[in-house]
């Protein structure tokens, strides 16, 4: 794969309700920030990919709202409906196809403007499942129960993830929910859907993010701190919840394997310096650390309490606070990429895990119970 770099990143502060901003206002803020970060004018953006979701926006053709503010005028543009990591993938292929030198990618969502259970209920099959009243939280509770039972993982182990990520979020100026809490606080928080308690669940936030991709020639002209794409892949598992074992994440394993292969990574735990993963719920961070090969199957709980995934540990996971700290749906994965870029550049401020971050992993998910995963490996060096 030819060399592709991320040359600019931006994100808004993620909040419970950004009542002063329309979708376009919010995206513009992230776009402006990314252009300033790259030191680019909008005329140097060759094409644009917006990422949005019609259901969350309450608008068919949601991409209609944010074209102008993403610099789409006079340009070739397109839209991906799914997590921002998928939008970024398409944006990357438009450079690799030889058609464009730079692509600007946005992703956003305002969860405050709808009833999220109704939005996620619509993801379920209208013939067999929707009438059961399932939504993202209840379905993920099924997965959490299955996963924890299979491997003997405890709620207290999962609570450690909540403690870690909410604490990390305190260092994140963009986070929605930075909290200093204990395992006890998590265990005592309101039960939402057994075994998930309130502090096991990410909030639903309003926010937007933007990244700018470039081919090598343009990247070197634009910035002296390009962050290189070392590997990327995505993969979707079966759809009906009963068509797969919810305790497994085979799609993530496949996507990770492919991405690691591209990046030449053989021992992810040792070679990856920091990982930003899609922790919509505490148990998900645990599962994904297994699927990504940071530990063996079923060992996510032990990993969570070992301190290895803390900011100072040997495989820091979500130093930004992850989704538990801020979750504008659709933008969730793109924000992981933004945070990973900052780590590599040494610009992560109080979230910086160490001085010499060479390889960072960013991860996004689409669909329910981690059905479809996209894994990005980013690096300081092109080789």
């Amino acid at each position, binding site marked *: 794969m030819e060399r592709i770099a991320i040359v600019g990143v931006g994100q808004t502060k993620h909040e419970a309700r950004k009542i002063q901003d329309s979708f376009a206002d919010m995206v513009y803020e992230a776009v402006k920030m990314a252009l300033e970060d790259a030191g680019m004018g909008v005329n140097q953006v060759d094409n644009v990919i917006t990422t949005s979701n019609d259901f969350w926006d309450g608008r068919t053709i949601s991409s209609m709202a944010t074209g102008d*503010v993403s610099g789409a005028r006079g340009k070739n543009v397109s839209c991906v409906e799914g997590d921002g990591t998928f939008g970024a993938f398409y944006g990357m292929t438009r450079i690799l196809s030889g058609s464009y030198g730079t692509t600007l990618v946005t992703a956003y969502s305002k969860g405050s403007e709808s009833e999220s259970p109704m939005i996620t209920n619509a993801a379920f099959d209208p013939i067999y499942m929707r009438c059961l009243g399932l939504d993202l939280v209840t379905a993920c509770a099924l997965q959490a129960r299955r996963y924890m039972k299979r491997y003997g993982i405890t709620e207290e182990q999962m609570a450690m993830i909540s403690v870690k990520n909410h604490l990390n979020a305190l260092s994140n100026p963009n986070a929605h929910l930075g909290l200093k809490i204990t395992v006890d606080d998590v265990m005592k928080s309101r039960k939402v859907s057994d075994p998930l308690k309130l502090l096991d669940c990410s909030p639903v936030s309003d926010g937007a993010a933007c990244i700018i991709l470039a081919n090598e020639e343009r990247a070197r002209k634009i910035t002296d701190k390009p962050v290189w794409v070392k590997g990327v892949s995505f993969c979707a598992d079966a759809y009906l919840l009963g068509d797969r074992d919810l305790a497994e994440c085979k799609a993530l394993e496949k996507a990770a394997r492919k991405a690691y292969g591209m990046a030449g990574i053989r021992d992810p735990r040792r070679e990856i310096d920091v990982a930003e993963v899609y922790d919509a719920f505490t148990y998900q961070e645990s599962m994904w650390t297994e699927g990504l090969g940071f530990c063996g199957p079923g060992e996510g709980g032990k990993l969570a309490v070992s301190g290895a995934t803390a900011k100072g540990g040997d495989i820091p996971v979500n130093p930004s606070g992850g989704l538990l700290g801020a979750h504008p749906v659709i933008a969730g994965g793109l924000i992981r990429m933004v945070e990973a870029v900052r780590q590599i550049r040494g610009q992560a401020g109080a979230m910086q895990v160490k001085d010499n971050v060479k390889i960072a992993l960013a991860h996004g998910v689409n669909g329910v119970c981690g059905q479809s995963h996209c894994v990005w490996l980013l690096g300081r060096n092109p080789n």
Partner: protein
Amino acid sequence: MPEKKTDLLTIHSALDAEQPFRWSAGRYRSRFMQEIRDHKRFYGIKCPKCGKVYVPPKRVCGPCFVEMDEPVEVGPEGEIMTFTILRFSFVDPETGVAKPVPYAYGAVKFDGADTQLSHFIEYEDESKLRIGGRVRAVFQEDRKGSIKDIRAFKLIE
């Protein structure tokens, strides 16, 4: 599967009910609608680069990609740029009710504006409706801070 003839079933959504939304109008359009509600006045916003006046107002001029912040009063009269007369009735998903036909709908350019606001057009004599016709906004008595505070544009001659 058995060879028996199968009935073809249709599953109806339990929520023929709405998915309720509460969209933020944002600063620019909130101001626009407050001026209509409180003062029966229309405001556009002017691009500092190309000078175009946008109605309804918004933050960014698309072609110039610059932020705008200069409010410009426009209207209350304007010109019909194009229109149509609806003759075939349909159920409006916003209200659940069909608006009685015939009625006119079209794009109105306020005096002083460069973009067109589309809305209903009221008329007495259909033959007088034409592109280039002059119209004036007609307001609801009870205004709530919505684009519907404009009842329609009325043909003036």
